[in-house]
C-alpha cells in the first residue's frame, strides 16, 4: 500500500522526459528518470518502481538489450513495462518479455496519464 506510486521513465530524449515527468508529477506520481538502458536498469534495481516507461530506440543500451537484462533479474522482472516506440519502429522483432503495452510516440499528456493509471491498477491486482 504505497502513497506515491513510483514510475521510472527511461528515454534518451531529454525534452520528452521533462514533459513526461511534468505530466506525471502533476498527478502526484513520483518520477525517476534515466537516459539510457544501463542507467535505467541500475535505477530499476535500486528504486523498484511500480511501472516502467521504456523507450525502445536508445543509444548505449537500447530497449531490447534492457529487456534481456531485465528478465534475468527476478527482483524487477515483475514490474509492468510500457514500451514507447516512435512512428516507424520495426515491430517485427519479438520482445524478450511480455510488454504490458506498446505506446506510440508522441503521446498526448492526457493519454499518458490514462495509460499509466490503467496499468498501475492492473499491476496492483496482479501482485
Amino acid at each position, binding site marked *: 500500500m504505497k502513497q506515491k506510486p513510483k514510475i521510472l521513465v527511461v528515454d534518451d530524449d531529454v525534452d*520528452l522526459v521533462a514533459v513526461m515527468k511534468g505530466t506525471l508529477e502533476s498527478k502526484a506520481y513520483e518520477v525517476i528518470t534515466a537516459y539510457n538502458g544501463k542507467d535505467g536498469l541500475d535505477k530499476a534495481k535500486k528504486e523498484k518502481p511500480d511501472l516502467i516507461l521504456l523507450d525502445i530506440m536508445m543509444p548505449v543500451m537500447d530497449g531490447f538489450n534492457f529487456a534481456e537484462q531485465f528478465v534475468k533479474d527476478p527482483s524487477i522482472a515483475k514490474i509492468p513495462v510500457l514500451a514507447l516506440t516512435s*512512428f516507424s519502429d520495426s515491430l517485427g522483432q519479438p520482445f524478450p518479455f511480455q510488454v504490458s503495452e506498446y505506446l506510440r510516440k508522441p503521446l*498526448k499528456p*492526457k493519454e499518458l496519464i490514462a495509460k499509466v493509471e490503467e496499468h498501475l491498477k492492473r499491476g496492483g491486482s496482479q501482485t
Partner: protein
Amino acid sequence: MKIDNVIPKEQAVRDHTPEERALVLRLGVYVNMRWLIVLMIVFATLISSRVFHIGFSTLPVYIICAIIASYNLIFVRQARSLEAGKGGQVIERAQLSGNIQIVLDLLMLTALIHFTGGIENPFIFFYLAHTIAASILLPQRRAYALATLALLAITLLVLLEYYGVIPHVNLVGFVLDTRYKDTSRVVGVLVALATLVYGCTYVITAVSGELRRRQKEMVKLKDQVLEKRTMELEQASSEVAKLEQERRSFVRFLGVVAHDLQSPLVATQSFLSYILDGFTGQITDGQKDLLERGVRRIDGLLTLITDLLDIPRIETGQIAREMREISLNEVVKRSLEGLDNVAKQKELTLKVELPESSPKIIGASRRLQQVVTNLVGNAINYTNEGMVLVRVYDNENEVGVWVTDTGIGILPEDLPRLFNDFFRGSNAGAKGTGLGLSISKRIVEAHGGKIWAESPDPETKKGSRFTFTIPKKQTAAR
C-alpha cells in the same frame, strides 16, 4: 575390422582420364586384331599350300601361330583388367604392354618370314603393319627405334640366309631358288622396305603427334573457359554480396534518418500538447487554437516522414524479411481496432465479413495491416453517410479483401492514377499525403498480389470498392 579390408586396394576402380581411355581402347583393338591376324596367316598358308600348291613346310608356321595365340591370351586378360580400371598407373602399364607386344610380334613376324621364304615372300612388307601400329601407339622416338629394330631384324635374317648361316626356305613353285642370293634383288627389296618403313613412321608419328597436340590444346582451352567462367561467377557473387551489404547499410541509414527526423518533432509536439492540456497554466482561446494547429501540422509531417521512409524500405525488399505464415482474419481485425470509433463518430456503419476458417497466407502482418487500415481509413474519410463493408474471401489460389463504401466515389478520370505517388483525388479535400494508396500498392505487390479500385461499387452502384488479392503459394517471395 578396418575399413581398408573391405575394398582391397588392387580392386579399387576409378575413372580413366581421356588420355588413359584412348590408350586402353587402342590396346584392346590391337589385341583383338591379333586374333584376326593369326586367322589370316593360317588362311593364307592353307591357300598357298593347298590351292596354289606352293611348296614349303607348313608345320613351323602353325607352331608360330599357336605361340602368337597363346601370348595373345595373356594380353587379352591384361587389356580387360586395364579397361576395368583395376590398379593404378594405367598409362605406364598400357605403354609397357604395348611395347612388349610389338617386340614379340616383330620376332614372330621375322620367324614367320624365315619359314615362308625370307626375301622371296612378298608378305615381307607386313613389317609396315608393325610400323604403323608402333607409330600410332608410341611417342615419336620410340616409334623410330622400333622401326629401326624391325629393319635390323629383317636385314639380319636376310643376311644370315644370304651368307648361308641359316638355311633358306624356298617357296617351291613360286619363286626361283636363287633369288635370296641375288644381291641386287636383296638390296632392292631391303631399301624399298626401309624407305617405306621410315616413311610411314614419319607420316604417322607426325599425324599422331598433331592429333595429340590438338587434343591437349582443346583440353587447355576448355580449362581456360572453365577458369574464366569460375572467375566471372566469383565476381558476380562478390558483387551480389556487396550490393546486399549496401542495401543493409542503406536500411540502417533509413532507420537513423527516421529517428533523427522524428525525435525533435515528437518532442516539439509533446511541448505543445503539454501547454494545450493546461499543465503550464491557463491558456487563452487564441493560444489554444494556434497550439492545436501546430499539433496537427506536426502530426501530418510525422505521417509524411513515416510514409516517405517506408517506400525505400519496401522497395529494397525489407518486407521479404518480415514474411511468415499469418492469419488474414487476425490481420483484418487488428487493422480495424482504432477505426470503429472513427466510424461511430461519423455515424457510419462499419461491417466486417470474415470466412469461418481464417485463410492462412505467407505475408508481413504489420504491412498488410497498414494496407487494410489505409483502405478502410480512406473509405471512412470519403463517406459521409451509410456504411463501410470489409469482406474477406478465400479462393483456391488466392485470398482477397474487399473494402466497399457508400461514399463520394472516385471520378472516372482519377481511377487510373489513383495509386500514383502523391495522388490526391480531384473531388477530395486534399487530405493526407497522397502516399497511402501508393504504399499500399507497393506492399500488396511485394506479396505478389494485385490491388485495384472500382467506382461505383458493381453491386451497390454507389461509392467505391477497393480490392486486393494475395496469392496463396508464396514460395517465390523468398
